[in-house]
């Protein structure tokens, strides 16, 4: 069997590193961090999230505070979504783009109050994003930026039993927090932002707290969830869950060469909002002239797993590539996402995927692969 080499540089660790080791986690490098890829196994953790609940340490994500009278205008100039639509205690999903429309990262923006925002970015891109935010802050008055990534821990409790597990630990009535809304609260005696957001396609909460409280919060949640079958879940299951749900992962479905429109994220791009933003002109033009590529769902017609980077061809011509692929536990078969030209993107289009030298027949299918029952 071929083996991967261990990473050479020092990796960052979240406050939960020792807790992960104590739980027998297998740790891997991700975005410059040493993170748990699995505890009991990816399939088991994935199923736990779909059927009961799973608890993820996502403290490696980056967070910025963006505050001041000029904060809204500043954010509006950086992201394609319309930040002015946010009310207090609401969040939205967007991206930061280059002038040519290519995606630098995807992110969430939380409105804590007027002139008070928190931006949550991906772990590996946090340094790049911070430089981007800092550079572009230069032209703006009444604006303070702070990189609070090192002061912020983040746990994600996801699954149909998430509310049932979390409610006994907090006075905050969770049923009052709608999807993509949040509240400051206290969970198991620990101050948190309780956010009804997630990356799994299930109901659930993301809890932002101080790093010094993370281990206690983690242990209290695991204890509280024991009788409900809550399992700690790692990045492996996080990936299979988000792929089934059709969510993009930066560096796969989104890169600096790919626009949000090509990734099917047009719903989060508000070209008509009352503010210019970096990349707007390029996106306006792409929308008018036609997308260069489209993100599609792919299923093989035979056994096999399409993986990131595998070539897609049609009628003997190389037309695109897989961006993510895996065995999807809830589907019971392998599924993938990838890019093809719009002319080949219709549901039902027959394509081939090059799996290590063999051309395997495949078909374009709708995204997402999985949608939870309402």
């Amino acid at each position, binding site marked *: *069997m*071929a083996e991967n080499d261990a990473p050479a540089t020092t990796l960052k660790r979240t406050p939960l590193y020792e807790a992960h080791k104590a739980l027998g986690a297998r740790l891997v490098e991700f975005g410059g961090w040493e993170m748990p890829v699995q505890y009991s*196994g990816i399939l088991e953790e994935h199923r736990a999230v779909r059927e009961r609940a799973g608890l993820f340490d996502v403290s490696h994500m980056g967070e910025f505070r963006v505050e001041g009278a000029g904060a809204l205008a500043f954010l509006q100039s950086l992201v394609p979504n319309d930040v002015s639509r946010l009310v207090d205690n609401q969040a939205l999903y967007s991206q930061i783009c280059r002038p040519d429309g290519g995606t630098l990262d995807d992110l969430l923006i939380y409105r804590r109050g007027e002139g008070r925002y928190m931006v949550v970015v991906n772990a590996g891109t946090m340094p790049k994003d911070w430089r981007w935010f800092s550079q572009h802050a230069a032209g703006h008055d009444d604006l303070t930026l702070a990189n609070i990534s090192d002061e912020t821990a983040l746990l994600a409790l996801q699954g149909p039993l998430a509310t049932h597990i979390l409610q006994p630990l907090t006075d905050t009535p969770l049923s009052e927090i709608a999807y993509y809304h949040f509240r400051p609260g206290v969970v198991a005696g620990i101050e948190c932002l309780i956010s009804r957001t997630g990356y799994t396609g299930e109901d659930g909460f993301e809890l932002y707290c101080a790093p010094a409280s993370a281990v206690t919060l983690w242990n209290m949640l695991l204890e509280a969830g024991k009788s409900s079958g809550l399992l700690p879940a790692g990045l492996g299951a996080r990936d299979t869950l988000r792929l089934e749900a059709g969510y993009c992962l930066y560096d796969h479905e989104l890169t600096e060469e790919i626009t949000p429109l090509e990734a099917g994220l047009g719903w989060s791009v508000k070209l008509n909002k009352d503010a210019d933003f970096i990349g707007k002109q390029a996106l306006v033009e792409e929308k008018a002239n036609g997308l260069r590529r489209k993100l599609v769902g792919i299923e093989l017609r035979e056994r*096999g797993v399409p993986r990131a980077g595998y070539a897609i061809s049609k009628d003997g011509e190389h037309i695109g590539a897989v961006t993510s692929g*895996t065995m999807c536990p809830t589907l019971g078969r392998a599924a993938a996402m990838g890019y093809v030209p719009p002319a080949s993107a219709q549901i039902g289009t027959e394509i081939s995927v090059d799996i*290590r030298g063999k051309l395997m027949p495949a078909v374009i299918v709708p995204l997402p692969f999985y949608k939870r029952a309402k």
Partner: protein
Amino acid sequence: MTASEQPDNLKYAETHEWVRVEGDEATIGISDFAQDELGDVVYLDLPWDEAGTREIRTGEHFGDIESVKATSELFAPIGGTILRANKALRDSAELVNSDPYGQGWMLVIKMSNPADLDKLMDAVAYTRFLDTASH
């Protein structure tokens, strides 16, 4: 994490395949260490229908093993003619995880050069190899 097992009666390759020799036949699979490293095995790509016809050389890439996260290549620890492939693994790839030395066997071959077995490690040497390779 529990320590992996390396049965005494087998020989092992650095690429984590094992060999059980019975006369001039060799049964091949992957070690407990390897299945644990892979995680949940979901598919195997083996020469299912090439029994009696396919010759593989020592060290040849004879198949692929798919876990949820990644694909890994399988290398023949010993060469010869393929006699049988374990077709149970087509529908129950998880046997590689649950029983890597038993029901998780992959191929039986008729060895063409048994002397190549000398290049493999015994259980003691393989265990030492695993200890030095891990952090």
